[in-house]
């Protein structure tokens, strides 16, 4: 919980990872390139006081994660969204066993989502059923640019992906978190395009599709489909640190999201360990649309409460203390000027 100016905020960090990118876990040069890319994101967008050393960045471990999120970071509940990246890391990038053990130890604080890869076809589908039971899955994280053999990506409207979504419906896995990456087959088209999310969301209306990074670098494509598909949501990972380096740009992103979606379909996340939640929560609660940007309405406290935690809490049926909920009479939709 975070408190400021007499208001209390229930915080859900909807996208966190427990990764291991240390050299001994790197399978090849791409393992190093991948974590270096993350580290540059971290260095580029973090305030100087929040920057980690490269060594710290390679691996955090459970204790450090608990401290950064729950002791220092105001987070009430966090959701693991692992990327496997088996083509880059010996034991995968997201540490399944370690993260699941931590979530089992702290079920009030952590939810473990797992990942699947539709290119594993039937074997992967059987594995998904076992994983759903073992982990008690409510959600999955899909990275569409995951490399596997000679394939470097897949789409959500591929026939096998649809079979996995059908299994998700049956298994009660309602929340599909999507991270688009730079490669699909064929490479002819824009890999970041979210048209495949549109198709899947239309065909699986009882599943929630949370597009991480709110579709960046294709905010426009994302907004366009999200305005038409009520089960498409925006994750703020990667977008939210722009509050610090580029507050006017962030104001436009959040302004556009509130215009095209609504305040019930936007979720906060730090993308830990890309960034840490403490400064992001503090800065977001203080954040306001600049006055001269008259095309956007000012952010309300109720909108901030929803974005910082109540929206994801509703999606994951988290038990929010009564005093941290919004009163029922609070207006649900705020028109954008």
């Amino acid at each position, binding site marked *: 919980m975070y408190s400021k100016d007499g208001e209390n905020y229930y915080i859900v960090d909807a996208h966190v990872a427990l990764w291991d990118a240390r050299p001994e876990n790197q399978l090849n*040069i*791409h393992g190093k*390139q*991948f974590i*270096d*890319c993350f580290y*540059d*994101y971290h*260095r*580029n*967008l973090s305030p100087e006081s929040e920057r980690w050393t490269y060594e710290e960045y390679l691996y955090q471990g459970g204790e450090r994660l608990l401290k950064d999120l729950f002791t220092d970071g105001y987070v009430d509940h966090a959701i693991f969204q692992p990327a496997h990246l088996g083509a880059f890391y010996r034991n995968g990038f997201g540490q399944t066993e370690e993260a699941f053990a931590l979530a089992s130890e702290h079920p009030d604080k952590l939810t473990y989502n797992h990942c699947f890869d539709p290119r594993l076809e039937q074997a992967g589908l059987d594995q998904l059923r076992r994983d759903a039971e073992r982990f008690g899955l409510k959600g999955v994280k899909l990275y569409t640019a995951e490399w596997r053999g*000679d394939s*470097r990506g897949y789409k959500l409207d591929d026939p096998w992906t649809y079979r996995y979504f059908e299994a998700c419906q049956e298994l009660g896995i309602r929340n599909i978190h999507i991270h688009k*990456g*730079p*490669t699909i*087959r*064929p*490479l*002819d*088209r*824009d*890999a*970041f395009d979210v048209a495949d999310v549109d198709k899947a969301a239309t065909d699986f209306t009882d599943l929630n599709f949370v597009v991480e990074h709110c579709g*960046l*670098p*294709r*905010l*426009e494509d994302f*907004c*366009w489909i999200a305005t038409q598909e009520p089960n498409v949501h925006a994750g703020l990972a990667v977008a939210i640190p*722009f509050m*610090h*380096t*580029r*507050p*006017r*740009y962030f104001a*436009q*992103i959040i302004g*556009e999201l509130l*215009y*095209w979606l609504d305040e019930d379909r936007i979720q906060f996340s730090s993308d830990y360990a890309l960034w840490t939640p403490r400064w992001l929560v503090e800065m977001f609660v203080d954040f306001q649309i600049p006055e001269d940007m008259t*095309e956007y309405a000012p952010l309300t406290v109720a909108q901030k409460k929803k974005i910082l935690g109540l929206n994801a809490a509703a999606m994951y049926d988290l038990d929010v203390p009564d005093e941290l909920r919004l009163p029922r009479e609070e207006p649900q939709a705020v028109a954008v000027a």
Partner: protein
Amino acid sequence: MLTHDQARAALHTVVDPELDEPITDLGFVRSLEIDGTRVTVHLRLPTSFCAPNFAYLMASDAKDALAALPGADEVAVLLDDHHDSELINRGLADDAGYRGTFGAEAGQDLDELRLTFRRKAHTAAMERALTRLLRADPELSETDLHDVTLADLPEGAQTEGLLRRRGALGLRTGPGEPVLVDDAGRPYPREEVPLRLRFARSIRISIDGNAHFCRGLLRTRYPDSGADQSPEHVSRTVRTNAS
């Protein structure tokens, strides 16, 4: 005799399709060496994981632009520090083309990808021009933008940029042409204008934001690259307190 300036000017015609800016202004040209009739260029990108199709487009466009110069008999373009450097550099050296470079990962060609981003660049330029008019004249409503023609736009780099992007799509550029048009040059119905402007704005925000982020990441990755980047265009970017 080929000069450094000529080669640099050729590279300046190569545009990052996603960011709609020349690779020279973005700082993507790491080095340019001329030895008689031999030109060697190294390119660098903000991350190892920048999309390989765009990386290939820029590198092959750079090679084509240099090879077209009189006096450039031997042109080598190399992409540094990318996850596909080996693949792309081999394809460029062999003049293998897109399909020859990416093999089974390629389908037809990258024409549609180019077209998609030319359209986005045009839509963003249109939004910049129209939003500027709106800000300058509080009496002007969004719906009024339906009647704005190219002749109504002030002279200057921004309008020239819009005309250039219309030209790239084969759209008409006469003074009486409406400014707010779809990808085929057709005006929208009056009642749709606010929505279309809004959508155009989301494209402009996306492009400007990506350009800013990519420039910043390049400087983080290659600390000396800032000196090679042109200032971000004032008209293109949102003002900021922090940078």
